[in-house]
């Protein structure tokens, strides 16, 4: 099989998987899902590491390092902020009753 066709096959199948896995998401989770997907494409950090680690040109090195910084912000920040959001969804589950406790006038 032509190598390009192998890549195309992976691509097409991934498209279907990508649609299928999120097709039943409730609107409640749209924001965290978008944020989580956003973090996943921060994996471009891997690409940035690969090109930067194999270049001999000084300009390319600088550009690559900038790409690494940006990609790391995307990936690490994305996962952390998604986790912060999701923590809030998990927390209130154990307390279904109306509980006028702390909080208030902060």
């Amino acid at each position, binding site marked *: 099989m032509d190598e390009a066709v192998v890549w195309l096959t992976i691509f097409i199948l991934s498209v279907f998987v990508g649609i299928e896995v999120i097709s039943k998401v409730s*609107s409640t989770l749209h924001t965290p899902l978008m944020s989580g997907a956003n973090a996943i494409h921060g994996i471009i950090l891997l*690409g940035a590491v690969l090109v930067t680690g194999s270049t001999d040109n000084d300009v*390319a*090195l600088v550009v690559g390092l900038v*790409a*690494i910084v940006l*990609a*790391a912000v995307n990936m690490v920040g994305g996962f952390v902020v998604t986790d912060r959001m999701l923590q809030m969804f998990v927390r209130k589950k154990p307390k279904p009753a109306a509980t006028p406790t702390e909080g208030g006038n902060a």
Partner: protein
Amino acid sequence: MPTWVQLVNLLCAVCFILALKGLSGPKTARAGNLLGAGAAVVAVVLPFIYLDLKHVPLIVAAIAVGSIGGVVGAQKVQMTQMPQMVALFNGVGGGAAALVALVELHEMVPHADAVSWFVLAATAFTIAVGAVSFAGSIVTFAKLQELMTSRPVIFPGLPIVFGASGVAAVVLGVLTVTQPAVWIGIALALLGLLVGVLLVLPVGGADVPIVISLLNAFTGLTVAAGGYVLSNVVLLVAGTLVGASGTYLTLLMAKAMGRSVANILFGALKGGSTLGAGEASDRPVRSAGPEDVAILLGYADRVIIVPGYGLAVAQAQHTLRELVDVLVARGTRVDYAIHPVAGRMPGHMNVLLAEAQVPYEQLVEMDDINSEFKHTDVVLVVGANDVVNPAAKTTPGAPIYGMPILDADEAKQIVFMKRSMRPGFAGIENELLFDPKTTLLFGDAKDSLGKLLNAVKAL
């Protein structure tokens, strides 16, 4: 690449699929996110083990700088500012992808004859679309952060400039394939930036979240193309997953707002929204003090709260929850009606109320609560506007026409808590404010809710 590395890469790709799957269910979301994070870390660490990378200290330092920046930003951001944070993270990701492709193009040029045209085309795609995503996200960020107007920005000839830049980008993309050169790549990136800015400028504030989602999908696709260029299956699969699910999510969101994506992107160019005057009207309204509203609420049997972004801006979620607790203790039935796009992003309001520890059962989605408004004594609208604006049903041509709304107008009494008569995010006036059933309580949401809480307690 050793076989074991390829297998670990495959494992990471599978983890990303499971991560997305997890993120789409409330119980599994957090685990899914952590799984994705774990897979990403493993995938990034791998090349340090199996490759003899150059410049390792510099690379590690750059990763550290970016990670610290990301963590600090993610920890500090207020939940209200989440949409612009996502936009910013998405933008830098797109920018990184474009830069990676530029460096890769530079490496390819000396032996370009040996590179297949398809790889060059993918490189050009990554450069151009990555730049679009970067510039578009930055404009989106500026709009949401109110560094610039959130209204559509249109100037004469914008469609022509936009079209011309698009055509020029395609030409440069073809040139990248036929006679690869770094300067063509750089020109392509600059054009991509221009296209990104022009794409987002005409989009009105209320539609910006949809654009974030779309740009998110764009970045995913650029990462996928980058993965093909670098022959890396993790990038290809992860990028494609985000591209496909992001596109689908964009369509879902647009549907929730009763809009089409094409209309959101290009609607303003057709010069449609004449109603977006955005000026406060001086027609008479009925306003009341906290004590009067307290009596309305205190003696109602059924109350529905419609929370909006203004509630979150005033940081009044906690006070509102206290008020609801007091009302429930008095025997009133209270629910929160959550519009799918309440806040600034679909699902945003759920996050904000969860932060204030509002019990999950009190949050009722639009489709489930709309039939209850006609049996409701008082609807309390706190910092919301567009999601109860009847113009969405009655005024063809209004920017929000066709968007499903909460039928607050069917309730017996409506109380709006507002800072001023300024229109909502969509920039249009709300007829419901002038309805005889409507009472307005002016003031900062937190301040007013505090007074209201004391007044209800004193009943």
